[in-house]
């Protein structure tokens, strides 16, 4: 593999990890627009642990993930009182606050950034990505994942079925933050440098964008979205200066043609023969 290819693959890996961080709460209908903030917590947390406390990487990166999860847990309860657009705005603001704190924190270099001594090679990045994908895939086979989708469909009925809706939402947001923190922790150690400016709004929003582009109906959507989003700009290099315009147009086109995302539940439902599609003939009763 050439340096260019492995460099691209590493970036793809970080994008995949971020995608799953956004996907978990999104599966329950919660839009997290502050994922970069949770990555920053993991990145700075893990870097401080290896730089200042002499922790080994294999302990520092998970600790960075836990730190991000802890931040999510603390803010989840007040944040999840808000719904819809307000939840999105609250996580957006949280991401901004976190980045601003690190930007002004002198012990991690402030705006000048924070060099990281310990190095994580591409192998480590691939391994973590594989572990995250495997974990989220397993999770998608559980009742927990089913309940997240149920909550997205109808939180009132889900509650009446005995399911702790708030608890599931907190868990989804927190687990997503742990994944973001893990990715952030490894990011700093791979590029040997952490700077708050990297964990900006654009990172959060692009991540949501390509998760939606891939689709949130199945666990593979975010993966496909991340691949698409990472590889397409490279393919479009032939277009020279126009590639970003082309890229934006392609994304808009995809969203228009496949609003449910590239991968939908139907694309994977192959085990059973498709049921006969009978049109709903009777009108809904009032209410």
């Amino acid at each position, binding site marked *: 593999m050439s340096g260019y290819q492995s460099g691209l693959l590493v970036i793809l890996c970080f994008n995949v990890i971020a995608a799953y961080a956004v996907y978990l709460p999104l599966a329950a209908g919660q839009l997290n627009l502050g994922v970069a903030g949770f990555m920053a917590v993991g990145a700075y947390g893990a870097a401080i642990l290896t730089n200042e406390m002499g922790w080994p990487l294999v302990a520092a990166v998970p600790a960075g993930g836990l730190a991000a999860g802890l931040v999510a847990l603390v803010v989840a309860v007040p944040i999840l009182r808000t719904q819809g657009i307000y939840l999105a705005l609250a996580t957006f603001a949280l991401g901004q606050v976190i980045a601003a704190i690190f930007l002004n924190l002198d012990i991690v270099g402030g705006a000048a950034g924070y060099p990281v001594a310990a190095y994580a090679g591409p192998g480590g990045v691939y391994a973590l990505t594989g572990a995250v994908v495997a974990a989220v895939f397993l*999770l998608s086979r*559980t009742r*927990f994942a089913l309940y997240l989708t*149920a909550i*997205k469909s109808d939180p009132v009925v*889900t509650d009446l*079925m*005995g399911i702790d809706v708030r608890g599931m939402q907190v868990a989804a947001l927190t687990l997503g933050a742990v994944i973001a923190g893990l990715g952030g922790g490894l990011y700093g150690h791979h590029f040997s440098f952490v700077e708050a400016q990297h964990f900006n709004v654009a990172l959060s929003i692009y991540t949501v964008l390509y998760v939606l582009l891939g689709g949130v109906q199945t666990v593979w959507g975010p993966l496909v979205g991340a691949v698409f989003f990472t590889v397409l700009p490279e393919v479009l290099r032939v277009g020279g200066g126009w590639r970003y315009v082309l890229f934006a147009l392609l994304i808009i086109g995809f969203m228009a043609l496949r609003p449910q995302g590239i991968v939908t*539940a139907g694309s994977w439902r192959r085990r059973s023969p498709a049921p006969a599609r009978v049109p709903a003939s009777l009108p809904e009763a*009032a209410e």
Partner: protein
Amino acid sequence: MTTPALALDSLSQSFGGLQVLTDLSLSVPAGRATALIGPNGAGKTTVFNVVSGVYAPTAGRVLLHGRDITAMPSRRRIRHGLARSFQNVRLMDHLSVVENLIVGQHATTRGLSDLLTPFRLWPEHRWRRQAVDALAEVGLSAHADAAVGALPYGIRKRIDLVRATLAGASLLMLDEPAAGLNPTEMNALRDHLALLRRRGVTLLVVEHDMRFVGEVCDWVVALDFGQKITEGPLAEVQRDERVRAAYLGQAA
């Protein structure tokens, strides 16, 4: 007298200035099928919403098997034996039929290990099998893997009912289970309710179709403007002047 499965004690409910239930007391005997009837807007669905905990009543108490559940969080009530269906069919559109039913089994599962078992790695896991069996019992197994939105209204309505039975509830509240069903589906529904009664499930049924009420229920409570106007066997209730007036008032 034995403890009723459900008792409402001087229940009142208002939304803003709108008084929807007023000092309503009624009891649903265990092991029987009781109907709750009344013209549109009488407050029948509101009774279900208060009993299931969607709304906290303005005043009064709800007793489930003699236990005061008025302040119990809505999600805990199903584990105490209370389940319901919905007038407007509220299946989860993002899930398949069998997935909806597996969500409906939640109250029979235990703890974090059940929550995090990747059971869908096994195509014949017992949770799925139980859900498919419940469909087969009422002749709906052909729809197990269908997307909910693709199904006709009558089928969705009956699946909503199957889902309500999967938590092993002792008291089932059904909000217009027969509305929108064709004659064949009505027969299947009658058989289904008979099966539930043989299993000892107590039914509280809101229904406008009086023939259906007569076939399924042995006691009828009539509501109007959120108040109980009478109760008794169907024939008696139908003869009652106040009931006739209530329904006439609606027609006028």
